């Protein structure tokens, strides 16, 4: 088991990357899960507003009450330095001065130069505040013009403007048939990226090290049988990928809120089949003896590209038909199809589910055959003697 042991010793030197990948991936998943938990309802932001009422009339008091219902009123000393400090340190977002003569002007329908304001930055909220004040003045003015007295007009204007328009975020899917919890579903969706990234970035360098030309030459000179050498490396690969997969499934169980039950195991099976695909992809890529830099580039291109096209980062329901047609040639698409059924975004259909998993498996098998073919071409054949011939020729 010398080769097997060496495989894990080499792997140990590459695991630093894996140890970074796993917590980053988990943090990202958890972050996205909570980011998605807004309940689908918009709520207006409350500002810290300071009002200096220089008019001090019932009409200006009505305005103060109106502003106070949507914002938090903050008392400040009417001193320029104090105000600037408060704005600078973010204690207050908006400083409004209701100018003297506000009530008189508004009563005769004049709506300009009613206020003065100070703010640090023109954020959406502060701009909205300014617009709201103008709108309030216009509304009051309109009510007065309609024959209401000033106090009644202010009351009606405030009442009208405080009415909320109900806003809900659009949900593209109905999750009523969900098998997985939303957190677990999101976790298993992003697992695609983690599995590709982690497997390729750790396993590829190990396979390259184990099959480096000089090492292969020296190994071929030794008493070890080539089949034994290959089998020991394969055994190392299998144990490593199962270990990674088991870790991710265990974390998935935590995300799911406990041990998987019933149809939830389909997510586990789906991830295992996809793991087989990523392993074969890794072995396939390493057959070309690329450099570490090339591996990093390939890993990023494949993982990010496949995730974008297949609906990992962007839900499949939001992707165009052209993109989805192209994505059908990627195993991640079929993985996500299964995942969507489990999260209730797609109707659960057993035939589609089996077909999707079979297609993922098919991709793995095709890659295995392509790997054998490439090795046959690169190393001049599958027989021991010819494989060794190639290794020997390297030193010529």
């Amino acid at each position, binding site marked *: 088991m*010398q*080769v097997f*042991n*060496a495989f894990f*010793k*080499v792997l140990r*030197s*590459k695991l630093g990357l894996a140890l970074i990948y796993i917590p980053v991936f988990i943090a990202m998943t958890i972050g996205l899960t909570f980011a998605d938990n807004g309940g689908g309802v918009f709520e207006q932001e409350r500002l810290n507003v300071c009002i200096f009422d220089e008019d001090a009339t019932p009409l200006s008091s009505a305005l103060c009450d109106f502003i106070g219902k949507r914002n938090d009123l903050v008392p400040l000393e009417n001193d320029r330095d104090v105000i600037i400090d408060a704005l600078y340190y973010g204690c207050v977002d908006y400083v409004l001065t209701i100018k003297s003569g506000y009530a008189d002007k508004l009563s005769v329908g004049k709506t300009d130069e009613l206020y003065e304001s100070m703010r640090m930055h023109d954020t959406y909220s502060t701009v909205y505040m300014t617009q709201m004040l103008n709108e309030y003045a216009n509304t009051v003015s309109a009510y007065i013009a309609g024959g209401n007295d000033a106090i009644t007009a202010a009351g009606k204007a405030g009442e009208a403007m405080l009415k909320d328009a109900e806003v809900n975020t659009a949900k593209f899917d109905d999750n009523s048939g969900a098998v997985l919890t939303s957190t677990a579903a999101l976790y298993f969706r992003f697992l695609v990226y983690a599995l590709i990234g982690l497997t390729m970035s750790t396993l590829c360098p190990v396979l390259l*090290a184990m099959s*480096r030309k*000089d*090492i292969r*030459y*020296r*190994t*071929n*000179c*030794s*008493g*070890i*049988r080539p089949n034994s050498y290959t089998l020991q490396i394969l055994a190392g690969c299998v144990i490593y990928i199962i270990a990674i997969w088991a870790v991710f499934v265990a974390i998935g169980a935590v995300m799911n809120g406990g041990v998987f039950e019933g149809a939830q195991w389909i997510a586990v099976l789906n991830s295992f089949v996809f793991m087989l695909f990523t392993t074969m992809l890794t072995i396939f890529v390493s057959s070309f003896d690329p450099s570490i830099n090339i591996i990093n580039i390939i890993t990023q291109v494949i993982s990010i590209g496949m995730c974008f096209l297949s609906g990992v980062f962007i839900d499949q329901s939001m992707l165009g038909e052209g993109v989805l047609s192209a994505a059908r040639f990627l195993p991640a698409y079929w993985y996500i199809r299964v995942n969507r059924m489990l999260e209730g975004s797609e109707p659960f259909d057993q035939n589609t589910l089996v077909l999707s998993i079979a297609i993922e498996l098919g991709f793995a098998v095709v890659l295995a055959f392509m790997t054998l073919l490439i090795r046959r071409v690169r190393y001049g054949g599958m027989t*021991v*003697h*010819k494989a*060794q*011939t190639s*290794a*020997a*020729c390297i*030193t*010529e």
Partner: protein
Amino acid sequence: MKNSVVKIDNLVKRYGDLTALDHLSLDIAEGEVFGLLGPNGSGKTTTINCLLSLLTYDKGDIELFGKKMSPTAYNIKKEIGVIMQNVAVFDELTVYENIDYFCGLYINDKAQRKQYVDEAVKFVGLEEFLKSRPKKLSGGLLRRLNIACGIAHKPKLIILDEPTVAVDPQSRNKILEGIEQLNREGATVIYTSHYMEEVEQICTRIAIMDKGKKIAEGTKDELKRMIRNTETMNIEIIDLPDEVRSKISVLPHVYNTEYDGSKLTVYCSGGKHNLTRVLGVLQEHELGFGRVYSELPTLNDVFLEITGKALRDKED
């Protein structure tokens, strides 16, 4: 009569139209340090690869330890240690792990392997670097690690394919001393090189190869006796008249002279007192001369005379 460890008979290896080995035959006895000497591309490495059954060949037979060598002759392979020109170690493993790994390809027993690895480490003097990774080692130390990986399992036959290429003189001497020690401990050594000084220093028998053919074989003295030249004299002299050079050229045992305006080179074949006679001619004509030195023939002279070209490439 010692047992034959390596027997190559009439070996032919072709790459398309190129004949890499042309009816090569070698017989290497137990305990020998056998040198394969030849310029780059002469077929040394091809011979080694055929010997190890890493290359198929078109014709001929190879026997190691009296048994026919084949790609699946794992019992024979276990008795061979190979040290190549390139350092073949894992960058990811420590010095100790590397030696242990390659030793483990031959020795399964853990206790025995540990002992062998410890001995190999001591042999190459890497005790202080056991936990270092190869990238932290200097070029010379790397070569020593490469050798340790090749000999840790105590092979009966050690094949060294140009192990001193691009190695500093100090490390080179250590490597050569190590090879001699391995031979004293009972290993048969095949040493390929295009450095004639190394081959002269350590090899008990030498085969000179060129264009896939063995052009000469024997001990270094036997090889030198094969050629005409026995002594080369160099005399620093300015303005040597042609008539004097002509007189020297016809002296007994002198078969060639060369003069470049400042140095006269006289090639002799056999005989005694050649230098005295040459200097006598110069004194007779009252010609002053500077430094005078005489050289015995080298393997390069052997190669030069047999093939008409220098053994070593200019850049070496």
